[in-house]
């Protein structure tokens, strides 16, 4: 299964909110793979991919956070100029819209990893696979 789960947290835009989230995950021994914050004035949404999504979700939920899970794709990008273009172009040509994306690099993988939220995840999976792009599985993200 190529699609992976991202955790999203509703957070007020206030000092200490990020620390509370991080603390909860630390206490639950959940490791964060990639993270981004989208802010919209008074509030924001913290999005992250972690090694153990179920455990992370439960820990945050039990601590009173407003949490949701979203299907995203983790796409391997060649760490060379034009690496992102190949992926973005494939999706664009096939009329798949990217809602948002964030990337991270892992030492072991020697590759960049792009987390993608798209409007049509089935189609995106299909066209990227056809174009020879590798999508990371849940297990791979867990074992990075």
């Amino acid at each position: 299964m190529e699609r992976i789960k991202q955790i999203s947290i509703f957070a007020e835009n206030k000092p200490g909110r990020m620390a509370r989230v991080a603390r909860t995950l630390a206490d639950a021994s959940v490791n964060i793979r990639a993270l981004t914050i989208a802010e919209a004035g008074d509030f924001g949404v913290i999005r992250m991919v972690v090694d153990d999504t179920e455990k992370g979700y439960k820990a945050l939920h039990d601590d009173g956070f407003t949490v949701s899970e979203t299907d995203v794709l983790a796409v391997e990008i060649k760490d060379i100029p034009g690496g992102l273009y190949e992926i973005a172009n494939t999706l664009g040509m096939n009329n798949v819209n990217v809602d948002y994306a964030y990337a991270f690099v892992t030492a072991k993988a020697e590759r960049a990893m792009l987390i993608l939220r798209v409007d049509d995840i089935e189609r995106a999976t299909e066209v990227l696979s056809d174009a020879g792009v590798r999508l990371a599985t849940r297990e791979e993200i867990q074992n990075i």
Partner: protein
Amino acid sequence: MFAEYWNPYIERMPIEDLHKLQEERLRSLVRYVHDHSRFYRQRFREAGVEPDDIKKLSDVTKLPFTSKRDLRNTYPTGMFCIPENWVVRYHVSSGTTGKPTVVGYTQGDVDMWTESLARALTSIGLGRGDVIQVSYGYGLFTGGLGLHYGAERIGATVLPTGAGNTERQIELMQDLGSTAIACTPSYFLYINEVAQKMGVSIHNDTKLRAGILGAEPWSEETRKRIEDSTGIKAYDIFGTSEMSGPLFTECHLQNGIHIWADLFLIEVIDPKTGMRVEDGERGELVVTSLDKWAFPLIRYRTGDITILNNEQCECGRTHPRIMRILGRTDDMIIVRGINVFPSQVESVLMRIPEIGDNYQIIVDRKGPLDVMTVKVEVTESTFSDKIADLMSLSREVGRQLKNVLNITAEVELVEPGAIPRSEGKAQRVIDMRRV
């Protein structure tokens, strides 16, 4: 088994007889306060009215109004009509909006209060075999002891939990099989929230079927939310500490609060002019006590905004009804010259399923302009990860508020639990402009 009426003779008395009874009681009340209270004597003199001027029921309008200001000016017992050693109990208001006010009761006054609630609780279908959990505060506040006496009188079992210690309340509710609970609507919502966290469903895991909710203004939409989420029937209860405490509720038909006319004479007036409004129009509730002796009330301005309904209820009770309290003359906030009642804001918010049960209104001044911010909690069941969805939720709340209030409110989405919960009366408005 429960009786249909607690006091059928009085509760179903033909309206003409009821008026005759009121007239007799009004005449003796006016004579009584004139003879026993220097305060009332002086008031009558200032208004140019003598006890003999009060012959018919309609003559009540010749009497002067009294208000909370009078209670404060005569603090602690200057308006009492009996020697203090006849007082069997005091209750004292919290004084959050000024000096506290003291109300005293004779034994007869306590009995009248209890009788009033016995009729009310019977009218919603409670009686022997019911376990009534009284989660109003006990002590100086009237809610706890008032309901306690009323519930005991009808032969129900009282579980006097008082307010607070919510998890224990829920455990006891399950263990002792509470069938009804009396508390503020905001506290009941909090109890439901805590129950859910404990994995307890009020609907499936308790025997609760009725809530006797009041002591703060609440909306029809909140009633719907409470009933839909817990499966109980929520009944509105009314009474002010000056009148005794909680006294009246809706009957099982949930269509207005029955005010026992043999005990209180009610009027609804325009708070600005002091003139009576037409039945069906909103105004300030004014009460005259007809069977209360330590501290009788003559045309006391409650500050509560409501609507009078003199049509007879289908339950067979002939006594007049008032609509749920729509707000208070003193909790109305004026924002940019427009009158706003927190209950209006509440009725808008409770219609929007994506937001939680708690809210707070904050009024501040930025430069010359009043700014009203409404804080609402995002619920996990509707949180979607998409910023656009949250922004449109916030816009939608703002749009609906604007439709009803005619002013723009800033909407702030906050995390669940971010708005302080209350075990008694919820603080819905924070006005920073006065500081």
